[in-house]
């Protein structure tokens, strides 16, 4: 019936065939696409607000809960240097930390920083003197740069 209507209304077989092709391609995936979206929505419903906000970092090789503790220690107006060694997850940690610790500002060199966050790094190897060290967790140290 649809074909007859389309064919009659359009008055052209090629146009009707193209419309039918587009319609068929769309309809072919409609149930699957809809089911997928609903399935994803159902799965996502289980996330609490707390978990959802931290989902981007999940499974990236570091703990966001630890970063939450860092947020409690590092002042909101801190300018900090992130000391992290190259290892799996280090890139994700660097990227996530810069967003998650805002409005604290990250800098590219310890010389420019007022604070250092050492994440399983080697704070003693940094070219600045550190004071008021606080070990948030084993290997995770927040310290002020002594000026």
């Amino acid at each position, binding site marked *: 019936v649809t074909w007859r209507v389309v064919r009659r209304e359009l008055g052209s077989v090629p146009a009707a065939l*193209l419309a039918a092709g587009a319609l068929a391609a769309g309809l072919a995936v409609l149930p699957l696409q809809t089911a997928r979206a609903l399935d994803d929505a159902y799965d996502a419903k289980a996330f609490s607000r707390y978990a959802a*906000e931290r*989902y981007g970092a999940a499974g990236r090789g570091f703990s966001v809960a630890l970063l939450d503790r860092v947020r409690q220690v590092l002042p909101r107006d801190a300018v900090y240097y992130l000391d992290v060694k190259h290892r799996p997850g280090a890139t994700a940690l660097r990227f996530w930390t810069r*967003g998650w610790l805002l*409005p604290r500002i990250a800098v590219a060199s310890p010389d420019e920083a007022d604070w250092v966050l050492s994440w399983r790094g080697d704070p003693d190897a940094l070219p600045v003197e550190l004071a008021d060290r606080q070990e948030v967790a084993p290997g995770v140290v927040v310290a002020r740069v002594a000026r």
Partner: protein
Amino acid sequence: VTRDLGALAAANVCLLAAGAGIARASGFWRAPHELPGVVAIAYVAGVGAVGILATLALLAGLSLQVWQVILACGLLAAVGVRAPREPALAPSLAWSPAAKRVVLVIAGLLGIYLASLLARSALEPLRHWDAWAMWTMKARAIVLLDGLDTRVFAGDAYAYAHRDYPLLVPALEAIDFRFMGRLSTRVVDVQFWLLFVGFLGAVAQLLRDRVQPLLLWPALLLLGLAPSLAIQLEWSIADFPLALFFALAAICGWRYVEWGEPAQLVLLALFAGAAWATKREGLAFVVALFLLLYVFAAIRRRRLLPLTGALGVSLVAIVPWLAWVKTHGVEPRELPLGKAIDPGYLFDRTDRLGPAVRQLTWETFKPSWWLALFPLVLLAGVLALRTRGGRGPAVFLFALLGLMYASLLWAYWGDVPEIHQHVEHTARRVVTSALVTAGVFLPVLTTRFARQPAREARSPRAGTESGRSARRCPRA
């Protein structure tokens, strides 16, 4: 979630009001009962306009507080106090009751699918790396640091976040966060969903006076259901809005050169500006679009001055940002322009072309991402080339797609990262603008070899060039 969604809806009502003002000032609606017929056009225009203004406001030192957004939207809405006498769109094409039934079923199915995407967008957390590391991070920075803090936006520690990328997406997300009163990244996908729905509606409303509904709605269903768009909607990255703005700019630009409708230039300027202000790839795409519009406008003896005006207005969206980037020394490192036009440099890197061509071709035709979209557009284009009325849009589209792919290829050619990994990671995203544009032109091409039905009763443009051309009945 409900509270955040309500706040996001309130922000978008403001964007709609701004767009409604622009649409009325351009003649897309004059009486209140005409507004529903262009509401999607108005909404997307509002998102584009406020997105551009928000970028400029950030450069001017503002911080996108709620009162600033409401004031800007109110001023844009006030632009529509006076409407021109001439309507921007011709009356819709008439539908037979049978066609109406078919279209209603298609629209209903598309609506069900979009509702399922809404449920997903409202509940899914932000998961894509680029979204949380770059786009939404910048939005968070705007809110938490009260504007464009150079320690972040020009800071070396944030170099990974492509500091040179324009700010429309972070600015829109920041507006949403401001209305929410908190940084609820979970529902920020809904902003992209609203833009997607607005885009589909805007295409339907922009083409309803030129394209048979029985051609328009199957094409919209195909485009709307393309798995690539559903996936990229979930990613919440800027390639997605760039594609939507650019495709609308292409349609409006084409309408100007084809039918000489000056009101379309307002939307062209707005959508081209928004594309420019969304992502760096938009620069090359919009330049290619305007280049072709000038060529076609000259061939069809359209006035070039208004087109130049549209180009000038759209430049306002990006030139200040480019100046800021230059001033703060955060130009892109990946594709140094000086090197990318150096024949010697490029000649040494020709081995990059093969993988780039292969991957771009694969991503363009990949049925699991784009269904049968590109083959159907190619077929429609080839058929349209054989008709007198269809040659123009077919050549225009093929030339536009050719230039867009050439710009992508050139970027991959001159770029620095290892090509195989780079192209595999990015090609699926960067083809989006070309494919969405191709998708919106599919019904435009197909209608050239279909019978053109009569128009609905109102015919205010009768006697004008636009009205005459609208009543033509092109056939194969």
